[in-house]
C-alpha cells in the first residue's frame, strides 16, 4: 500500500515544516537562555539541513530506507543531548523541542505501532537522561511521546489495512462487471443462433430442433434477466424481485409480461405468489393440454400487485370447483385460493368457452396483512 504511505509521508512533511518553524521561533524568543550562541547556531543549521534532506528523501518510497529512519532518530537524539551543553544544566525546553515529532511519526508510519513505541522510548530515555531533575510537565511530555507514537503507528496500520481491503473490493467488483459483460456477450451470441435455428423451423422439417432451440432461448432469456437484477441489486435487503421470479416461469408455451422494472417483495411472499401462479399454469397443462399456450401478466398497482394467468382452453363450470372442494379434493382451492388468502390478497376467476383467466391481487408488503386484504376486497 505505497499510496497510503505516500500520503502519510506527505502529511508528515507539512508537520515537519511546521515544527521546524516552531523550533526556530522559540529559539529566537528565548535567545538569552542560550550559553553558547555560536554553537547553537551551528546545531540549528545542522537541523535545518537535515530537515531538508529528510523531506526530499521521504518523497520517494525507495529512499525511505532503514538507514534514513535511523539517521533521523539519531539526529533528534543528538540535538536533544546537546541541550545541557548549549543551555547549561538548568534548562526547561530542549533545543529541538517539538521538532523530534518528525522522527517519531516517521517511525510510526514506517514501522507501525512498534516503530512508534521504539522511537518514543528512545526519545523519552534521552529526555530523562539529560535532565538534572524531572518535573511533572516533563513527565507529561514523555508520556504523550510514548502514547502518541504508538497510537499513530496503530492508526497507520489500520489505514493501510483498510486501503488494502478497499483495493481488493474494487478489483473484485471490476472483475464481476467484466464477467457479466462477457456472459452477456456469450449469451447474446447463443440467443442469435437459437433464434435462427428456430426460424428455420417447421418448413425445413427441423421441427424438433426448432422446438428445443425455442425452449433454450426462453430459458436463457429469463436467466439473463435474473442476472441483470442480481447485478444491480445484489445487496438489497428488501427481498426478492417478483418480476424476475415470474419471468423465470416463461417457457415455450408460457408468455410472461412484467412492468420491466424490479418489483420488490419479501422473498417468502414472492415465493408463495409464484407457487400460486405455478399452480394456475399446472391447471392449464392438466386441463387444456401440455402444448396449450398461457399468458402471465404482472402489474404493479401502488401497494398491491395483480397477477393474471390466462389460457385459451375450453373453460369449465365454476360449479365443478365448488364440487371438488366439497368432495375434499382441495387441489385448486388450496394451492391457489389458499395461498393468495394467506398473503392477504384476493382471487378472481373468469372462465368460459373463450378460455380461463385467474386474477390474483396481493398486497406488496405483509405487515399490512389484514388491512390490505380488506382494501383489496373493497376494490373489487
Amino acid at each position, binding site marked *: 500500500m505505497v499510496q497510503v504511505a505516500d500520503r502519510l509521508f506527505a502529511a508528515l512533511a507539512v508537520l515537519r515544516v511546521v515544527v521546524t518553524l516552531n523550533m526556530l521561533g522559540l529559539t529566537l524568543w528565548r535567545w538569552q537562555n542560550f550559553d553558547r550562541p555560536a554553537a547553537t547556531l551551528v546545531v540549528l543549521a545542522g537541523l535545518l539541513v537535515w530537515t531538508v534532506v529528510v523531506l526530499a528523501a521521504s518523497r520517494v518510497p525507495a529512499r525511505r530506507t532503514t538507514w534514513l529512519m535511523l539517521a533521523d532518530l539519531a539526529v533528534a537524539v543528538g540535538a536533544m543531548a546537546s541541550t545541557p551543553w548549549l543551555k547549561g544544566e538548568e534548562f526547561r525546553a530542549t533545543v529541538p523541542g517539538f521538532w523530534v515529532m518528525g522522527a517519531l511519526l516517521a517511525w510510526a508510519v514506517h514501522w507501525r505501532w512498534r516503530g512508534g513505541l521504539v522511537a518514543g522510548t528512545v526519545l523519552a530515555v534521552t529526555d530523562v537522561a539529560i535532565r538534572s531533575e524531572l518535573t511533572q510537565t516533563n513527565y507529561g511530555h514523555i508520556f504523550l511521546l510514548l502514547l502518541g507514537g504508538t497510537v499513530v503507528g496503530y492508526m497507520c496500520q489500520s489505514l493501510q489495512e483498510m486501503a488494502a481491503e478497499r483495493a481488493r473490493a474494487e478489483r473484485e467488483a471490476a472483475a464481476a462487471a467484466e464477467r457479466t459483460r462477457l456472459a*452477456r456477450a456469450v*449469451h*447474446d*451470441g447463443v*440467443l*442469435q*443462433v*437459437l*433464434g*435462427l435455428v*428456430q*426460424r428455420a*423451423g*417447421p*418448413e425445413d422439417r427441423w421441427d424438433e430442433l426448432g422446438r428445443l432451440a*425455442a425452449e433454450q*432461448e*426462453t430459458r436463457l*432469456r429469463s436467466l*439473463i*434477466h435474473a442476472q441483470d437484477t442480481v447485478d444491480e441489486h445484489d445487496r438489497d435487503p428488501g427481498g426478492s424481485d417478483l418480476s424476475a421470479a415470474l419471468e423465470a416461469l416463461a417457457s415455450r408455451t408460457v*408468455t*410472461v*409480461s*412484467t*412492468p*420491466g*422494472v424490479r418489483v420488490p417483495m419479501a422473498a417468502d411472499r414472492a415465493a408463495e405468489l409464484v407457487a400460486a401462479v405455478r399452480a394456475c399454469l399446472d391447471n392449464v397443462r392438466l386441463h387444456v393440454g401440455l402444448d396449450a*399456450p398461457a*399468458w402471465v*401478466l*404482472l*402489474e*404493479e*398497482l401502488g401497494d398491491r400487485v395483480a397477477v*393474471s394467468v*390466462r389460457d385459451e382452453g375450453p373453460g369449465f363450470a365454476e360449479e365443478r370447483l365448488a364440487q371438488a372442494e366439497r368432495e375434499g379434493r382441495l387441489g385448486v382451492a388450496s394451492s391457489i385460493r389458499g395461498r393468495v388468502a394467506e398473503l392477504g390478497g384476493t382471487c378472481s376467476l373468469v372462465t368460459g368457452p*373463450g378460455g380461463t*383467466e385467474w386474477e390474483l391481487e396481493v398486497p406488496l408488503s405483509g405487515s399490512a396483512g389484514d388491512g390490505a386484504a380488506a382494501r383489496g376486497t373493497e376494490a373489487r
Partner: protein
Amino acid sequence: MSEQPIRVMVVDDHPMWRDAVERDLQAAGFDVVAVAADGAQALARFTAARPRVVVLDLQIPEPNGVEVTRRVLEADPAARVLVLSASGEQADVLEAVKAGATGYLVKSASKADLLDAVRRVAQGDTVFTPGLAGLVLGEFRRMTVPADADAGPAVPELTERETEVLRMVAKGMSYKQIAERLFISHRTVQNHVQNTLRKLQMHNRVELTRYAIEKGLDAD
C-alpha cells in the same frame, strides 16, 4: 400488397442473422434497399436509400438502436421502425418505443410473424407483443404518480378503455379477440393501441420540454 414493393432496411451487427432476415424479406417480395451493421452505417445508408421500414436490432455498435430510431424518424417522420431484439432488453425496448418505434418483435418470432409485422408496420399499424404491452402499462402507472400541479405541461394519461385494451394485449389476446370481447371493431382496437403509443411518445416530449425548461435551455 400494392404493386410497389415495400422498401426495407435491415440493421443488425450479426451477419448471419442479417443475411437470414434479408433472404426471408426478399423471398416474400420486399425490396431490401440497404443493410447496415452499426448505427453510423444505418444513419448514413438510411439517408441514401430512404426505406419505408427499418428492421432494427437495438444492440448494435454506436450509436445504439434507440438513438438510431430517434435520428431516423427525425430525418423522415413517414418512416417506420420495427425493433427486433434478441435478449429482451426491456429498458431499451421502452426507450426505442418512446423514441418513435411502432413495432417490437423478439428475434425468436417465426418467419411468418416477422413478415406480417413488417407488412403491418409499413401500413402504419402498431405491432405489440404482450411483453411490450406489459412494459408500457407499467410505464404509464409510474408516470401517473402525480407531479407538481404547476410543473408545466400536463402528462397525457390513458383512458379507461385504452388501459383495458392494453391489459388485454399484455395478456396475450389478439386484436380480433379483443374486438370480440369488447364488441368493438378491429380498427378501433388498433386505434386504441396506437393512441397509447402516441401518448407515450408525447409524454417523452413533455418530459424533454420540462427538462429543457428546468435547465434553462429554452431561455432567450
